[in-house]
């Protein structure tokens, strides 16, 4: 059943059409949720919630935007709401980024000059760093760099301009670099501590 036909039938409450739409999009929505929250149980809940909202609202879908964009917008909003509740703050999407205090732009430090990340970035490090990103940055980074969406698609999903999407992505990457540098420094510090503790016990 083609997607357009499934949408039309789902608007009439057809069970087969609901399932067809779910099967067409569940993988991308679930992976988006999983990468945003890094927890399978939460990702399942969020996927369910996103599809539930979709099916509740499907009668209002008029095709002004692509169906997948509409669905992903719902999913991203569901995830951002969840993250906002988690952080315990009531902030707008724009506020869910971390602007540089003075200029409003990305932070401009280079990290430690002699410390390079190349070779020290792995899945675990990156995932931990992504978890620490402000929700707005996280959403754009996951959508673009992990999920592979283009900026025009992200603009549709996040309801922002293409320029805004590019700028958020850049800030997200810069923040990730900082976080990864911090992780590398922390690890180096722990290694030093462990080494000195070892040498102390030998003395």
């Amino acid at each position, binding site marked *: *059943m083609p997607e357009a036909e499934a949408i039309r039938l789902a608007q*009439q*409450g*057809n*069970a*087969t059409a*609901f*399932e067809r739409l*779910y099967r067409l999009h*569940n*993988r991308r929505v*679930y*992976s988006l949720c*999983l*990468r945003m929250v890094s927890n*399978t149980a939460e990702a*399942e809940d969020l*996927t*369910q919630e996103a*599809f*539930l909202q979709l*099916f*509740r609202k499907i009668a209002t879908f008029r095709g002004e935007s692509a169906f997948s964009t509409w669905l992903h917008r719902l999913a991203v909003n569901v995830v951002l709401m969840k993250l906002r509740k988690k952080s315990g703050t009531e902030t707008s999407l724009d506020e869910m980024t971390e602007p540089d205090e003075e200029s409003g732009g990305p932070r*401009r430090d*280079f*990290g430690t*000059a002699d410390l*390079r*990340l*190349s*070779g020290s*970035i*792995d*899945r675990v490090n*990156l*995932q931990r760093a992504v978890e620490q990103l402000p929700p707005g940055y996280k959403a754009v*980074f996951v959508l673009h*760099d*992990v*999920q*592979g969406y283009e900026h025009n698609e992200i603009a549709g999903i996040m309801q922002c301009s293409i320029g805004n999407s*590019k*700028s958020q992505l*850049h800030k997200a*990457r*810069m923040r*990730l*670099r900082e976080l*990864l540098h911090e992780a590398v420094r922390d690890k180096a510090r722990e290694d030093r501590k462990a080494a000195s503790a070892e040498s102390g016990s030998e003395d």
Partner: protein
Amino acid sequence: MATITCKDFLDRLESWMEGDLHSDSQAHLRNCPHCRSLVEDLKAICGEASNWRADEIEVPPRIWTYLQSHLEQEGLIRESRPAETAKATWFGEWFAALPRPVLAGAYLTLLITGAFTLSRPINRHSNEDLWRADSRDSTMPLRAQLIAEQNSFGSFNNANPAVNASLNQNLAIVDNYIALCEKSVQEEPQNEVARDYLYQAYQQKADLLAQMTERGENNR
């Protein structure tokens, strides 16, 4: 070539990462280890993120189970038509593969049949006659009756071979449709919609046979 500062390079870094490679930025990058390190780090982050994308993610089946029960509880699922779905898939494909003149002929025949049968109450089968009992076996007497009618049609050959061929083609179309509907009913005997489709298919055949009989009698 004018050289740019690290601050200038940072200002252009966003567009640089988007592939906008200014020659003065390139020159700066060649001479500045700090900025080079920064770009390499950002590229490494992007590279690792795209590796992450390639991960196979299995969606747990319980998500759909939960959703389905919620949709039912909330009354969002209002209709379930497996028979219609079946018709829309393999019957639809088979139907689409038929030549247009055959379909047009079948359609016209059904229209004419409708007109004939309205004026011929003897050969018409009412809903009560066709589907009186509640069990799926209730279609069997009708099926037998249709076979008997079809056999008797053999003795009323139409004088025009072209009309005969067209009617037989239409009969084959209806027979195929019946076979599909019977399959649906066999798979889901309690499905009212599937049974309804089968009933309609039988009725189409009854109407077609009635028309063929009528033509045969007129040509005798």
